[in-house]
């Protein structure tokens, strides 16, 4: 084993000697704890440690990357030389050499603010919480199955570049959830409760009050499975913040990734209908829509101080009053559309992965409406909470979303639950139907840690905030075979 400083020095020295124009090294020590309960039992408790280093080299406009979990001097030399060799080999197949846009040198450290370190909380306390939560769920007649889980992760990371930046990170993230499944008349349906994934301490779990929420979740699971199926037609939709976080992620987040718009993901995750020629002029949604990327908001997943290019986290507009005005970028792709600085959205999911453009913390800015007034102004509509089925095409036009819970709104009043609600549309047409966004008192945040992109696949982390939003005259169908 060699220490961090020795690794950094050894890697950067070899990169500089190779004649490469740029290089960096990331060393990451990750610790994660997963506690998962299912049907009144603790099925798994796992404490994982994952450490290693990744070396990125830019040689005559071509990238090379190599990484290893083996921390010996010999392996550090081998991996550094391999990254250099790969960059040199790639050079033969580069027709548009990479030129990184400039970024000031940063020397800094970033630490997540947490009241209670999740790894300091006794395991017995955590398993007891999950078992009691599941027991509470099963007290509700009609509940057949349950699950409950807690997750925590700490990443200690060092980033150092040949330009002189040296950054240290000690980042935490926490999440908890539970779910009840009701069975009725040959059908089954689940209702879930999720804390957001946030960069906080265990206080997130304590404040969520699982035991207080569990009876409601169980009762709604049973009500949901017994609820009438939605009738196909056009409805006004009132979407809650948790639900909107997924709609924003899929229909705004991914299309605003500049690498997708430039074709980098054409073979897998897809491209984007938000092509560079539309920047600054394309009407994405109604004037009520202001979608802002904010990687500076405390506690959010992408607010890490700096990204994996060593670029400072920032706040900027993606959609302003309905017009497409901004992309998520890194140092490689920003210059390709004439930008002189990266937006700092380059992130890798581990030491073993190369960073790429990821969705920022894109959120829907609050409006001025009150939720009760928004419902009162709906004659025939559906109120949707939480995440359900989701699917979208490879350019992010045609989407389809379900949800976790649905209520029929009739004549300005939220009435009974519905089941199997699916709405679908074309992204800019859908956002164009938004006629009201609730005020800041309704704003909530939800994080994602399983955003899939890249080959080999990586999981991106980001937070999407929103207040309730109303969409008029949206096509709804029942989600079942033959519908």
């Amino acid at each position, binding site marked *: 084993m060699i220490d961090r400083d020795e690794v950094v020095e050894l890697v950067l020295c070899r990169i500089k000697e190779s004649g490469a124009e740029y290089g960096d090294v990331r060393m990451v020590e990750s610790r994660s704890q997963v506690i998962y309960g299912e049907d009144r039992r603790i099925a798994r408790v796992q404490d994982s*440690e994952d450490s290693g280093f990744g070396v990125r080299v830019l040689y005559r406009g071509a990238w090379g990357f190599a990484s290893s979990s083996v921390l010996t001097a010999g392996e550090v030399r081998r991996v550094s030389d391999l990254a250099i060799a790969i960059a040199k080999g790639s050079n033969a*197949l580069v027709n548009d050499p990479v030129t990184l846009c400039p970024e000031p040198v940063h020397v800094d450290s970033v630490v997540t603010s947490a009241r209670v370190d999740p790894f300091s909380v006794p395991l017995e306390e955590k398993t007891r919480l999950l078992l009691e939560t599941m027991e509470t769920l099963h007290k509700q007649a009609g509940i*057949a199955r349950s699950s409950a889980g807690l997750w925590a992760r700490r990443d200690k990371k060092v980033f150092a570049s040949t330009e002189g930046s040296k950054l240290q990170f000690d980042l935490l993230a926490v999440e908890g959830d539970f779910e009840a*499944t009701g069975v009725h008349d040959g059908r089954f349906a689940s209702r879930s409760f999720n804390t957001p994934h946030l960069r906080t301490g265990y206080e997130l779990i304590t404040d969520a009050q699982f035991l207080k929420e569990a009876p409601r979740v169980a009762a709604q699971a049973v009500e949901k499975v017994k609820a009438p199926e939605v009738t196909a037609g056009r409805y006004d939709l009132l979407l809650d913040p948790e639900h909107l976080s997924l709609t924003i992620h899929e229909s705004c987040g991914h299309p605003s990734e500049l690498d997708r718009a430039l074709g980098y993901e054409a073979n897998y995750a897809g491209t984007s209908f938000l092509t560079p020629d539309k920047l600054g002029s394309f009407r994405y949604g109604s004037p009520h829509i202001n979608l802002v990327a904010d990687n500076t908001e405390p506690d959010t997943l992408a607010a890490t101080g700096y990204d994996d290019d060593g670029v400072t986290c920032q706040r900027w507009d993606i959609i302003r009053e309905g017009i497409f005005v901004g992309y998520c970028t890194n140092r490689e792709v920003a210059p390709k559309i004439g930008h002189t600085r990266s937006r700092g959205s380059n992130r890798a999911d581990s030491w073993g992965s190369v960073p*790429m453009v990821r969705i920022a913390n894109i959120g829907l800015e609050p409006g001025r409406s009150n939720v009760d007034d928004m419902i009162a102004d709906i004659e025939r509509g559906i109120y949707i909470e939480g995440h359900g*089925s989701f*699917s979208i*095409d490879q*350019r992010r036009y045609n989407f389809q979303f379900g949800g976790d819970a649905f209520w029929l709104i009739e004549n300005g009043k939220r009435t009974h639950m519905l089941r199997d609600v699916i709405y*679908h549309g074309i992204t800019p047409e859908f956002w164009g139907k938004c006629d009201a966004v609730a005020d800041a008192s309704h704003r909530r945040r939800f994080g994602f840690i399983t955003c899939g992109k890249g080959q080999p696949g990586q999981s991106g982390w980001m937070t999407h905030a929103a207040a309730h939003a109303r969409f008029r005259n949206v096509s709804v169908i029942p989600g079942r075979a033959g519908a």
Partner: protein
Amino acid sequence: MTDPSIDTGNTGDAVNAEGLITREQFRRLADLVLKTSEGDQTFLSLHDVSGGTTRFANNQIVQNVNTHRVSLAVTVSFGRQQGTATATDFGEDAIREMVRRATDIARVSPEDPEYMKPLPPQEYVPLKTIQQDTAFAGPEKRIMYAAEAIHRCQAGGLTAAGIVASSVAAVGLAAKTGLFAYEPRTEAKFSVTAISGEASGWAANVHRSIDALGVPARTRVAIHKAKQAAGPREIPPGRYTVILEPSAIACLIAPMIWMMDAKSFYKRTSPYEGKLGRLIMDRRLTLSNQTRHPDLLGNGFNSEGLPAEDLVWIQDGVLKQLRYDRYTAQEHHVHPSPAFDAPYLLGTPLGQDLAATEAAGAEHLAYPSLDELIASTSRGILVTNFWYIREVNPTDMTLTGMTRDGVFLIEDGQITTPLVNFRWHESPFRAFSNVEAFTAPTDAVSNENWKMQLPAMKIADFNFSSVTRF
């Protein structure tokens, strides 16, 4: 097909060459862990993987990576209490620390009523899980194949995006019960999207052998599709006769396999409730797994150490077998069958049993080709692949997804027009009950699934629910 002359014996040469942990090194590691642990039972699993991916887009390499990750997981149990710890640091002190962490968790964890002691020693039949060409490929060979795909697309006036990937792994399991398993495995992947303006074509393969990926042939397919797909026309959504190529069929088969778990079945939260022993798809279709198939990626053992086993899951359209974890299998007095490696879907002519068909071999039976399926269709839609498949209704397994990288109208037995992509909304139960004809099984790879051998199928009344903009 794999060259049978290649030495695929598990000699560990390639493992040594990549600096992976050898069988003997793993045995010594296991001895240390098992000796260190105070648990009533201790189980450890090793995953030592070295590999890389060359990624290209816009006719150039945009990402070229190589990673070596060695990780060990240890589960310690006292009675029915258990805990698991993992680490990537293999120093002796780090391993002792990992065992201590697992022990500490186990001592305070609640008893698990479904706890299962690790398996006793098992007998494993060696499978050809490693191919030397892949094990020794390295970045040079990946770049070479990427260049081939790029140059072919460029020569056709198209833009290429895709990957060439290869990896070699050492996988090991050991337990206090005496269980010991070790297997080197290789895997190679190729996929390419050929782009012509707004149109695209796609092809892919996954194989143990990088040289068996068929890069030139697959690239030609992608180029042909992209050229055919130029200038798509929009037609209304609705129910159509479709011909789904094997990649699209994989997108319907994969969820069926995922949802076959027996625990959900017995707890009444499975779409298979009431369907065991009943007809769930066309009587001519039989789904099995064939771990020894030379073009599939069967492993010698699963994550708990159960030996590879070939089973028939759906026979002549009838659901015969669920995926039983060890606890549920014990509860229901059946043999555990948690894994589903190397899926193989064979269409058997009516009146002929599976054994006779297998004895003849699919290649000797008179299956129509994909072209013949098209020629037999008066009006229908040919689908290359699906994308972003998600469950819509867990009770009846309704799924949704998009068509991708080549959708074509068939009229009077010929492809006449490229079409704008559709969203679809369908249950595999329903789709596979409406099968009209099928080809012999062949390689089936899609972006979100693992390698299978599946036929292309002609299916009536498939539900396209909306169209998109391209």
